[in-house]
């Protein structure tokens, strides 16, 4: 474990020795540079971009477009393929409304993996209901892999759209997006990827990924809440109808005719969130300055250490792969006889913040036969001593709850 981590932690005012924040898959903390960038924007450059012909507005426009270019470079995309949204959920709904509602018809198939976050499941369920398309379920094994049989059942020559997460927020395992995408593309379908849990934790190249659209959230990667991204292949975005309509997304409006603006503006209705985009840019710059080598080494070491410790505790059952390498910083688990909400509360009493519940992936919970579960999830700024605090408390939980008394 890199010892520099204590210097890195000083960038995060909220981190201290009292509380171990281990719910990073839900949202991350923000470094000082992000807070400073947002503040600098509001204190020196704030204006409504695009609309103004004066210098302040030009600066705001430039900052916003610089943030777009930064997000594009981060995932190997072109600038005009980046649409700023509020969060991954809005990005996915945008695709559902704009592409799904206008392109799918009865008989078409939408394949959705059983491990999707509700935000990449419910929009497609809605599209299926409203268009008459058929919703097909791509089932997974208990370790988070997809069998060839499951794939063959879910992806057919009628599959017009596949919705799949890059990394599940329960398993923490990297999905074989490229392989699945190739199958879908062969029959002319498109692939919508949920990158909420992958983009913050590993290098992303949209060309290598193989998907057509990719959604992610800023708040899960050190940026403020309220900013998210949808990436899409330019030609695809260009062929899609607008989603929300209003200011900024038009070229000309008359009572009886409208010309929409070009992509990406066509999909950004109303006053854009420059402050949020600037925050995301600062977050990406921070991530780049640390480098994914450091980030991934850090998160993997924490995951390995923690998983090993968990396996040695009686009555603790890890969800997903045996191997830490398939847990990208995320370990969901249950404790025999102890409800996950009680686990969380007992952890909280020891200053350990972990998640309890269905993790917005209830269909997966149903599939695994688990009502709900606990989840510990790491960011690079976590320490082994935080992981140990979690493990020590976990070790006492069953006895605290009266078992073996």
């Amino acid at each position, binding site marked *: 474990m890199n010892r520099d981590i204590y210097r890195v932690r000083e960038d995060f005012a909220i981190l201290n020795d009292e509380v171990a924040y281990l719910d990073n898959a839900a949202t991350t903390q923000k470094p000082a540079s992000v807070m400073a960038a947002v503040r600098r924007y509001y204190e020196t450059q704030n204006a409504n971009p695009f609309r103004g012909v004066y210098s302040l507005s030009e600066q705001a426009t430039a900052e916003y477009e610089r943030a777009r270019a930064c997000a594009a470079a981060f995932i190997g995309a072109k600038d005009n393929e980046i649409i700023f949204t509020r969060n991954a959920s809005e990005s996915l709904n945008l695709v559902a409304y704009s592409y799904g509602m206008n392109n799918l018809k009865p008989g078409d198939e939408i394949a959705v993996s059983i491990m999707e976050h509700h935000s990449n499941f419910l929009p497609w369920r809605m599209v299926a209901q409203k268009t008459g398309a058929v919703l097909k379920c791509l089932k997974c094994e208990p370790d988070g892999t997809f069998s060839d049989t499951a794939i063959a059942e879910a992806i057919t020559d009628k599959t017009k759209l596949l919705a799949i997460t890059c990394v599940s927020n329960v398993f923490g395992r990297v999905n074989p997006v490229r392989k699945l995408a190739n199958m879908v593309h062969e029959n002319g379908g498109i692939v919508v990827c949920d990158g909420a849990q992958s983009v913050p934790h590993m290098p992303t190249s949209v060309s290598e990924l193989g998907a057509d659209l990719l959604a992610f959230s800023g708040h899960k990667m050190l940026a403020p809440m309220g900013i998210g991204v949808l990436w899409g292949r330019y030609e695809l975005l260009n062929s899609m109808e607008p989603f929300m309509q209003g200011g900024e997304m038009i070229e000309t409006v008359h009572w009886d005719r409208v010309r929409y603006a070009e992509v990406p503006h066509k999909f950004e209705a109303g006053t854009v969130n420059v402050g949020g985009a600037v925050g995301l840019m600062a977050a990406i710059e921070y991530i780049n300055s640390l480098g994914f080598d450091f980030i991934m080494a850090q998160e993997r070491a924490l995951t390995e250490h923690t998983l090993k410790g968990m396996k040695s505790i009686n009555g603790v059952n890890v969800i997903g792969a045996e191997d830490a390498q398939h847990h990208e910083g995320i370990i969901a688990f249950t404790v025999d006889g102890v409800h996950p909400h009680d686990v969380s509360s007992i952890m909280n009493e020891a200053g350990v913040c972990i998640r309890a519940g269905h993790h917005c992936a209830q269909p997966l919970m149903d599939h695994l036969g688990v009502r709900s579960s606990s989840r510990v999830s790491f960011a690079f700024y976590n320490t082994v001593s935080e992981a140990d605090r979690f493990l020590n408390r976990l070790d006492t939980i069953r006895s605290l709850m*009266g078992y073996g008394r």
Partner: protein
Amino acid sequence: MEDRTFYNEVITDHNLHPLHKSDMDSPDIVLEGVNPSCGDEILLMLKVNDGVISDASYSGDGCAVSQASADIMIDMIIGRELSEARRLCGLFMKMIKSEATEEEIEELEEAGALENISRMPARVKCAVLSWRTLDEAIAGKE
């Protein structure tokens, strides 16, 4: 710190070894309580004679807080008048809001073990689930 916990013996005992978690033949009143944010479910079953709760039991699924709280409540209300049970519900709510006097908490007997739930706002719903369900049901009857 490692060993201090809200989950005292009263709570863990009622959770692991409930006294009244069982089905009931032909109950007079059946009440269902759900706490959707946690998934806690409680089914209260009461026998009532002349306004007095002659027997009660529950079934359910959920966290230790919700299940123990239900078991403790049932234990307290058996043999009491409906109006009296409602009064206890009121006291319990008061305690949860940190508004009850020492005497009132005393009167709540074992339910006093849940007093500190107010330190865990997200769990208050679990603690009050059975009490609220009972209270609303009796109110509906009146």
